[in-house]
């Protein structure tokens, strides 16, 4: 192996703590260089393999052509990308734009409903606390609703429902805005 002239003439000076002086020529260690180059190549191979594979895949399939969306056809979410690698990733690995959008809307809906319930609870609780000195009549659950629903169900099932135990006409449900109180 040839020894580089610059190292002999210039004196590739060693580190400060080594023996000798600045004019003494020092020769590098070949094995150290080869060891370092091996490490560099191993580091590069880690990335070179997938990049080469993706490149060959792209070369074989080719980039997509831009076209107008045909009538009555809804493209899949990976068909909005040009390169085959992008299409593969968006088809198999990533989630679509519409999916993320709807997911965000769902989360906002849950938060909105919870916040609305909390608001109403706070209003009622505040009212009860401010009017704690007033007569606190209690409220009973209106059991007539269940009876009405059962009546409707049985009417559907049997036709005319023979009122053995109730003996009263059905409720007037012509005005839907009245609350069952």
């Amino acid at each position: 192996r040839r020894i580089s002239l610059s190292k002999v003439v210039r004196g590739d000076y060693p580190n400060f703590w080594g023996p000798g002086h600045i004019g003494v020529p020092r020769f590098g260690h070949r094995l150290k260089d080869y060891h370092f180059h091996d490490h560099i190549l191993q580091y590069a191979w880690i990335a070179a393999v997938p990049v080469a594979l993706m490149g060959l895949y792209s070369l074989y399939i080719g980039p997509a052509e831009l076209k107008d969306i045909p009538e009555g056809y809804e493209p899949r979410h990976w068909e909005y990308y040009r390169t085959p690698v992008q299409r593969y990733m968006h088809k198999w690995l990533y989630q679509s734009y519409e999916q993320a959008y709807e997911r965000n809307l769902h989360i906002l809906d849950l938060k909105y409903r919870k916040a609305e319930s909390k608001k109403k609870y706070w209003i009622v609780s505040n009212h009860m606390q401010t009017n704690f000195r007033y007569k606190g009549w209690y409220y009973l659950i209106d059991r007539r609703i269940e009876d009405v629903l059962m009546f409707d169900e049985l009417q559907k099932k049997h036709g005319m429902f023979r009122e053995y135990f109730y003996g009263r006409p059905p409720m007037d449900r012509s005005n839907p805005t009245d609350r069952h109180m």
Partner: protein
Amino acid sequence: MGDGENVVQKEFRVSLFERTKDKVNGKLMLGIEAFFSKPASYLKENWIEPMQAKHRGNYYHRRFRRVPTIDECLVDDQLCMYEANEQMKRDKMVDKQIVKHLKIRFDECRRKYQDGAQTRCYQTYEDWQNTREDFLVKWGDMPPQHSALDVYYKQVHRMIHERRQRENPENNQKSV
């Protein structure tokens, strides 16, 4: 300067030396470019394009429907506000690209008319600057994390300011 009416047309003659220099330089540069591009063009057109034509797909541009804007949303309606925000962001991106492409047109015009750009490219310059000003009027001076409400209220305040200017022209106060 911009004086395009009274230009004196002089006859000129290029020397033989200059002409040969142009030809040689042109052919040399084109030859160097061809040395690298001809093999690639040949391979692409004769070997790679037929191979890709069998497996290649089509791609499309996304189309979005118009959803209600922020002024049509009820208060505390999170879903409507989210969709209005997304629509606002998309519209802003579109306007940004419009301004960008007008600048590209101006630069291409300057590249084409090297020394005559001052006279022949003024229209492109005007288009770009006016669109840029309108963009800043509509989308500029916003906080970094802004929503559709900020944009909407900017429009509201601007319209109120214009109305006040029209009603009381003598009371116009110029800002510092």
